[in-house]
């Protein structure tokens, strides 16, 4: 993944470069080509269908394109921040920014039973995990880990403030070493929930601090790690 090749839609990708002679003798996986986001097989060729940096993993012959975007398309397993917009008999309708609102069953919470159901008001911000996501069904969420039964951070997010950002920034913020979050964390106590749907929830002790944290995160999108630290320092000094 050393060379940074940028592709635009319609570019033909030569995937035979990915597997070198060494992988043929190992498992039979070298004959299987895995296409991730941004690539599709059109006719006999592999073409880029999105613009961005082309990546490939030579170990399992996996290829994909990394590009930024703002509109979320749900994908299974991703954590998302959403807003409750309706309540039906069996669950809630949650706006996660995708084309269709997501379904959140009433029992998909820690400790929920038929007798003890959660009672979320419309407008509540929730942190959930996408359980079902495909092109033909409405997406579905759960607000707990269905294997352990524990919430593990998912569920209602009370007080605080939610704002939108690009999907690329959200993805970078999920990294525990994200420069802006670490720079802020060393000076300000705050809690945050990052949704891969481009929504971030922030909660601090005072509104002014929440605004500062929000601005710092939004500003950090195109800054390097050092620039992030400098930007956070300047914001704190101005306070």
């Amino acid at each position, binding site marked *: 993944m050393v060379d940074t090749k940028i592709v635009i839609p319609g570019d*033909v990708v030569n995937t035979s470069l990915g597997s070198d002679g060494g992988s043929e003798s190992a498992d039979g996986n070298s004959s299987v080509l895995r296409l991730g986001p941004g690539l599709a097989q059109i006719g006999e060729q592999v073409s880029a*269908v999105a613009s961005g940096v082309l990546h490939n993993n030579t170990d399992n012959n996996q290829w994909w394109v990394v590009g930024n975007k703002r*509109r979320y398309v749900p994908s299974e397993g991703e954590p998302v921040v959403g807003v409750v917009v309706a309540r039906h008999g069996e669950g809630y309708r949650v706006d996660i920014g995708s*084309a269709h609102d997501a379904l959140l069953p009433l029992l998909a919470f820690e400790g929920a039973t038929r007798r003890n159901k959660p009672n979320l008001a419309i407008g509540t911000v929730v942190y959930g995990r996408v359980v079902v996501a495909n092109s033909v069904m409405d997406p579905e969420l759960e607000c707990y880990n269905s294997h352990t039964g524990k919430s593990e951070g998912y569920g209602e997010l009370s007080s605080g403030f939610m704002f939108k950002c690009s999907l690329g920034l959200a993805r970078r913020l999920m990294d525990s070493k994200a420069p802006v979050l670490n720079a802020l964390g060393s000076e300000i106590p705050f809690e945050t929930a990052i949704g891969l749907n481009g929504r971030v929830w922030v909660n601090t002790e005072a509104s002014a601090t929440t605004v500062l944290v929000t601005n710092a995160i939004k500003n950090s999108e195109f*800054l390097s790690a050092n620039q992030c630290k400098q930007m956070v320092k300047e914001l704190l000094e101005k306070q």
Partner: protein
Amino acid sequence: MRPDRREDDQVRALHSVVGVLNRVDGSAQFSAGRTSVYSGVYGPVDVRVYDEKLDRTHVEVKYRADTGAAGTKDRWAESAIRQTFERIVMAQMHPRTMVQINVQVRENDGSVDAVAINAVALALIDAAVPLRDTVAAASCAVRGDGSTVVDPTLEEIEDARSVHTFAFASSDLAANLDASTTHPVYVDSRGEFSVDEYDRCYELCARAAQRVLAFMRTAIEDKAAKESQISSSK
């Protein structure tokens, strides 16, 4: 001699800003000389039940000219752009949704159809709507003496015998095929013209489209590099 002293096969100065608008999913401003068009794209988003298609996304275009009340010309432009991009957008990937393309002409000094198509292509790429190809368009006018000039201005169009607009898919242009084997994704011809004049315009526009595509590629690469922070060290 052309009014602005350009060569017959010379396109005007191109300028673009990808991601110019910040409240849409994708946007671009594209200009050739003084002709300038904005495009903003939403998608895939929710769709009206009337337009909902069970197996594909619905492509909708809203076009507004720079001046004048909205009328049939705008509906024609919407239909032309929609038919072009309906085949380019990978519609099967997002059934029961809509991709809405908005076009606003900022200034029209000729070749506005081609500039609009280029702006829409960049906006769709900015929105990361899955596309089979990047599309590049160019226009050409046939003058009274039978000579053909590319990227005509409004003045040149008014004096022309016929005007032709062609758009090509990047995969066709990239294969280095000559114009006789490249297939356009959009063709619009108006006026009186011979087959020979049409062929010459085709050739001229295919070559101009290659240059427009190279320009668009640079614009997209610059934005992609900035977003992935290739240049700055982490």
